[in-house]
């Protein structure tokens, strides 16, 4: 059974838990990625890397407006055209207009979470443009017409059999269980797309303000292709991606690689600083950079700036017992899933009640905080979000009513005594609707056979007797 990302939260979780293939695939992938990460961090001074990575990101967020102005200036000096967008609509319109002005028809894209966030591909396709995802995983899910399910491994939910069948149905290739064969098919299909494309689009891992440089991390090389082959190159990035120095970007590159896949470094780290100059044999003739807010300034205003430190390595997903069971699609129509997704999806949303279940989809075990390369205190942020939602009235009606009665009852010993007796009966009758709903996803500890207050008074009586005997 496939997870329907537009279904209600409960349904999505039930679908995910009922999918045996998904459970196996998730378990395999997340444990391997977690192990590799742990080994890669143990091979160096891990705590030092985390301290330094945090410091680099913290400085960037503390000085965000200043660094953004510096970035804009240096990008412009490097020959880039800089655009600002307050929301998804403005960003997609900007990219569409760039494409229209240059009479672009074919676009190649490298993997980018921010373009998923603003649904850029769909918007460009509606305008009649051909958009091809070129990251192997993204290409597979584009063919399958599904959203990505992991920040760095978008087809974590698919087996090799599934991909083989998809390629067989799309290209008529022979069925195979060898990923290299599938990879070769994708290489030959996509090579032509790269060479024919008029425009390349990518996200950005880090934007170095001091030099006006857009950094891209890839292992496949598609990031290099989209930034080198087409006439036009467009970068879309969230405003939090800025980093003050080259040294900072190089540190974060290593932090990202170790924490995402357990590599020392990624295969490619491209640093792009503008369109080609006269006399350069290749590179784009035009380079555009779209700086996107889309809720990020609101995240800062609401006091959640820590969430903007994230470098999108996906380590928290692999560590999370909830993600490991339900996978990315159960988090709904969002580019970001797992613990960091549960924090930033509701924060980035315009509507305060959007994705309101996500901060509750966590056991607050803290595994995510322990692996985060920039030491984001994710459980703390999840709790803060729960509090915000309760205070702004987005908690379920029954839960609010229950909490109100709980407060009343706990203020009086008599009422508490009576309530406990009632609760003993009620928990036995699990069928009552509000309790049944609540208990569907929770294990309720049973009541002790004897009540504490009764136990206490009988002990006190016995103690009184024994002291008499002495």
């Amino acid at each position, binding site marked *: 059974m496939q997870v329907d990302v537009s279904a209600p939260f409960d349904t999505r979780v039930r679908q995910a838990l009922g999918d045996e293939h998904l459970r196996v695939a998730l378990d395999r992938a997340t444990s391997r990625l977690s192990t590799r990460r742990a080994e890669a961090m143990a091979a160096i001074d891990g705590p030092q890397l985390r301290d330094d990575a945090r410091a680099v990101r913290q400085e960037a967020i503390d000085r965000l407006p200043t660094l953004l102005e510096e970035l804009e200036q240096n990008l412009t000096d490097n020959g880039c055209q800089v655009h600002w967008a307050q929301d998804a609509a403005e960003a997609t319109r900007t990219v569409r207009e760039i494409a229209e002005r240059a009479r672009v028809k074919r676009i190649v894209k490298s993997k980018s979470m921010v373009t998923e966030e603003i649904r850029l591909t769909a918007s460009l396709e509606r305008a009649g443009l051909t958009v091809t995802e070129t990251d192997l995983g993204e290409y597979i899910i584009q063919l399958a017409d599904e959203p990505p399910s992991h920040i760095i491994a978008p087809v974590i939910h698919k087996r*090799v059999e599934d991909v083989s069948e998809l390629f067989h149905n799309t290209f008529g290739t022979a069925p195979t269980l060898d990923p290299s064969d599938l990879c070769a098919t*994708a290489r030959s299909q996509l090579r032509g797309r790269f060479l024919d494309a008029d425009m390349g689009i990518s996200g950005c891992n880090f934007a*170095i303000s001091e030099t006006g440089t857009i950094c891209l991390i890839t292992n496949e090389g598609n990031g290099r292709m989209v930034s*080198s082959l087409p006439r036009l190159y467009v970068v879309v990035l969230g*405003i939090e991606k800025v980093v003050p120095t080259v040294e900072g970007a190089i540190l974060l590159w290593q932090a990202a690689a170790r924490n995402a896949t357990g590599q020392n470094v990624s295969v490619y780290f491209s640093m792009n600083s503008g369109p080609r100059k006269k006399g350069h044999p290749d590179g784009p003739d035009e380079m555009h950079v779209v700086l996107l807010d889309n809720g990020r300034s609101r995240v800062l205003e609401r006091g959640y700036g820590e969430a903007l430190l994230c470098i999108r390595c996906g380590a928290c997903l692999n560590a999370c017992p909830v993600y490991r069971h339900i996978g990315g699609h159960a988090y709904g129509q969002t580019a970001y899933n797992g613990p960091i997704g549960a924090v930033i999806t509701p924060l980035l949303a315009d509507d305060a009640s959007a994705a309101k279940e996500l901060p509750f989809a966590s056991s607050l075990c803290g595994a995510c905080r322990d692996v985060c390369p920039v030491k984001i205190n994710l459980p703390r942020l999840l709790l803060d979000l729960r509090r915000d939602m309760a205070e702004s009235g987005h908690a379920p009606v029954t839960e609010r009513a229950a909490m109100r009665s709980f407060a009343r009852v706990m203020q009086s010993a008599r009422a508490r005594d009576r309530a406990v007796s009632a609760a003993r009966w009620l928990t036995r009758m699990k069928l009552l609707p509000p309790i049944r709903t609540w208990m569907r996803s929770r294990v309720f500890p049973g009541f002790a056979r004897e009540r504490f207050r009764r136990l206490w008074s009988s002990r006190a009586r016995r103690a009184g007797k024994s002291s008499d005997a002495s």
Partner: protein
Amino acid sequence: MPPEPRSRDVILQRLRRVTGAVRPQAPFLPRPVMRLAGESQSLAQQFGENLAAVNGGYELLDRRDAVTARVMQLVTQWNDETAERTVLSWSADELPVPGLSQTLERSGVTVCAPIDDHDGDIRARAARATVGLTGVDAAIATTGTVILASGPGKARVASLLPLRHIVLVPTSKIYPTVEAWVRERRAANSLRTLLSESKQVVFVTGPSKSADIELTLTLGVHGPRAVHALIFDDGSPR
């Protein structure tokens, strides 16, 4: 009616209200992540072994003279699948071995060093080449990384399109760590110029790879399937 404020100003104003005034200070400088394994091995040896650890290949050649013959052998060996022997290359001036391009040409190999890749003919030829040939701007021992800056005579496609990439690494260009390379560039005041003049500086660490399908390693997804370093002593100290 006053004109609608530009998005740029709206965003910056909102951010300014939250972040307030932050005292300007020297930017934070992170510490190096990796250290050299030991003194016993040369930088060249460590560079090669670390490249091999990420599925690359390497050979240590004792003389620059040995490079040309070895490149010739590799091109022949790797090109026997196709009739056309084309090498997509940096220009002769940018390769660290003088006369290499000319020798290849004389031996019947077509050396394509793009002047302008947006010219359709060049691009078609470039796309057919099965071997790429470049030098390096620097190489990093701890990670097996080569640093390639693009620019006149230094086509990006040479290290990107062909299935195999031969990279010529003079020992004088090998640095112990990536941080050491940046530090030297920073001290020489050439870091910013390198980035803004080259337009693309890329760190390449081994062949292109993916683990997207069931986390199974596959090589040569978009970039080269083989990255083969010919390391030679060029006698000049760094």
